[in-house]
């Protein structure tokens, strides 16, 4: 009894190893149950196995093989460049379903599909964890794979600076900055602080007196935006009382329940409450006033503090993306950002179009990096 099981076990292990190392699709291992290795899989113990990927065990899906014939580009599809694209596309959302990154990834996917901009199937895969670090580590196992995209926003830089990330984001291939959002300061409708001036004066008198809420840990966007503002106003951000909540909802509950003095959050998340007049928006971090419900809300600049804070979101290719693919995406994303599907989605999600091409995005990222470095050093989040 036992010896047979051992044989079977060994056989199973063998099939597994053989198949895992095989560089090409070894087809479905034939479901024979005979206790001897199947011929189909045996000779494929290829010597190339370990060479493919030094970082990780080899995955058969990786090594891209440009052997298949490129599909004919028709209609709206941008012209292929050097046979690109001829494979299914994977967009990585470095967080769970329903979050900002995931929504962006899926909106991009939908726009590409509906507008027939990408001739092959597209999928979104969620790589959850580590503030985006898991997704980053994942895309770093896909070096030089032209069919892997990933979306990110400022935490990409913040988490690099505070050393949460193990990989250097600068190796990614910036393809385009797509949208942007801004931070807004909210107080309860019956709060004694009527203007930014009132609030800042109170904070100046005693930085710890007015507690403020955000939906992420200290040292992330909700907190840093206010820290940036406070520094400009000559208030020590280290003395302010920031209370972190799990999500925007519980932060808002705490604000409406009078447990915190004000809240820092994205304009998109604030709009429903501002419209219902349960909260008052004191100031927004954009350079110019926003429209719609927010049209009466002054900017921080207008109120006398020369600070802006931008929550950008952009899309990247895997590290070492080929020049052909990069050029193809530069053109395609530009086209996509002008389509009706894309514009409609932005409208509905209350996102602000901030398209910028790969090169200017790269430059913008460098500036952001420097500015965050200064801000986070000053506030003690980098030592």
């Amino acid at each position, binding site marked *: 009894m036992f010896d047979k*099981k051992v044989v079977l076990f060994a056989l199973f292990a063998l099939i597994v190893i053989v198949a895992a190392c095989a560089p090409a*699709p070894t087809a479905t291992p034939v479901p024979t149950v005979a206790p001897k290795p199947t011929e189909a899989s045996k000779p494929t113990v290829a010597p190339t196995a370990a060479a493919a990927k030094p970082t990780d*065990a080899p995955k*058969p899906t990786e090594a891209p093989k440009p052997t298949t014939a490129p599909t004919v580009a028709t209609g709206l599809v941008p012209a292929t460049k050097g046979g690109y694209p001829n494979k299914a596309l*994977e967009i990585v959302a470095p967080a769970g379903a329903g979050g900002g990154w995931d929504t962006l990834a899926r909106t991009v996917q939908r726009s590409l599909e509906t507008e027939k901009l990408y001739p092959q199937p597209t999928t979104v*895969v969620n790589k959850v964890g580590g503030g985006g670090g898991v997704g980053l580590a994942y895309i770093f196992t896909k070096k030089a794979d032209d069919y892997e995209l990933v979306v990110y926003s400022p935490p990409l830089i913040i988490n690099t600076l505070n050393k949460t990330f193990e990989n250097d984001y600068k190796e990614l291939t910036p393809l385009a900055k797509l949208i942007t959002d801004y931070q807004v300061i909210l107080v309860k409708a019956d709060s004694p602080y009527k203007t930014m001036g009132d609030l800042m004066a109170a904070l100046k008198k005693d930085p710890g007196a007015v507690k403020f809420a955000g939906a992420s840990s200290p040292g992330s966007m909700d907190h840093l935006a206010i820290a940036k503002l406070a520094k400009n106003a000559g208030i020590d951000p280290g003395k302010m009382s920031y209370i972190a909540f799990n999500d925007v909802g519980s932060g808002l509950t705490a604000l409406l329940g009078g447990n915190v003095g004000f809240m820092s959050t994205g304009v998109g998340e604030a709009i429903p409450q501002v419209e219902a007049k349960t909260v008052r928006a004191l100031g927004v971090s954009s350079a110019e006033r926003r429209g719609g419900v927010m049209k009466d809300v002054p900017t921080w600049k207008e109120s006398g503090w020369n600070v802006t804070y931008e929550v950008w979101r952009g899309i990247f290719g895997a590290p070492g993306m080929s020049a052909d693919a990069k050029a193809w995406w530069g053109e395609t994303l530009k086209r996509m950002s002008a389509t009706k599907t894309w514009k409609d989605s932005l409208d509905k999600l209350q996102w602000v179009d901030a398209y910028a091409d790969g090169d200017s995005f790269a430059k913008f990222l460098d500036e952001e990096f420097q500015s965050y470095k200064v801000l986070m050093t000053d506030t*003690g989040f980098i030592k």
Partner: protein
Amino acid sequence: MSNDVKENRIASVVLLLFSATYFAMAFFTIGQPASKQILGPDAFPKAIGILMIVLSAAYVAQSFRGMSKEDEARAALIGADEKLSSYVDVKTVGIMLGLMLIYAFIFERLGYPISTFLMFMAGVLVLDRRHLVRDAIIGLVISFGLHFAFTFLLRVQLPAGPLSWFGL
């Protein structure tokens, strides 16, 4: 001394060591926060660590000295939990656990349908191989059926593995 008592003694000591490690790590591995805090990030782990040490010490005492009268009374009242037979088919369990680990290992490398089919067949071979043809068909239907249902109906991405070459 019965097996049961021995197992409990070993477990209680292991848990005590675990608790002590957890408690010690609260001092050495948790960094300092950069922002203003009333209770630092290490306060709760330390408190939990102390609780855990106290409780596992009580467990050690209990397992070496036997249950207190109060607990016996409680046990009589509640009724003992269902007792596991101490018999362990080490071979079967060991092989199946090994298979599970291999399954986890090949899950992404071989893709969902293939690895699942292999796991299914291996499991069937180990446990009962009297209906192999029937089971092989079931295995094929389940592994590939689930894969397609998830990918195309629910649009949840499962790793396709080598199958991605066929555009699946």
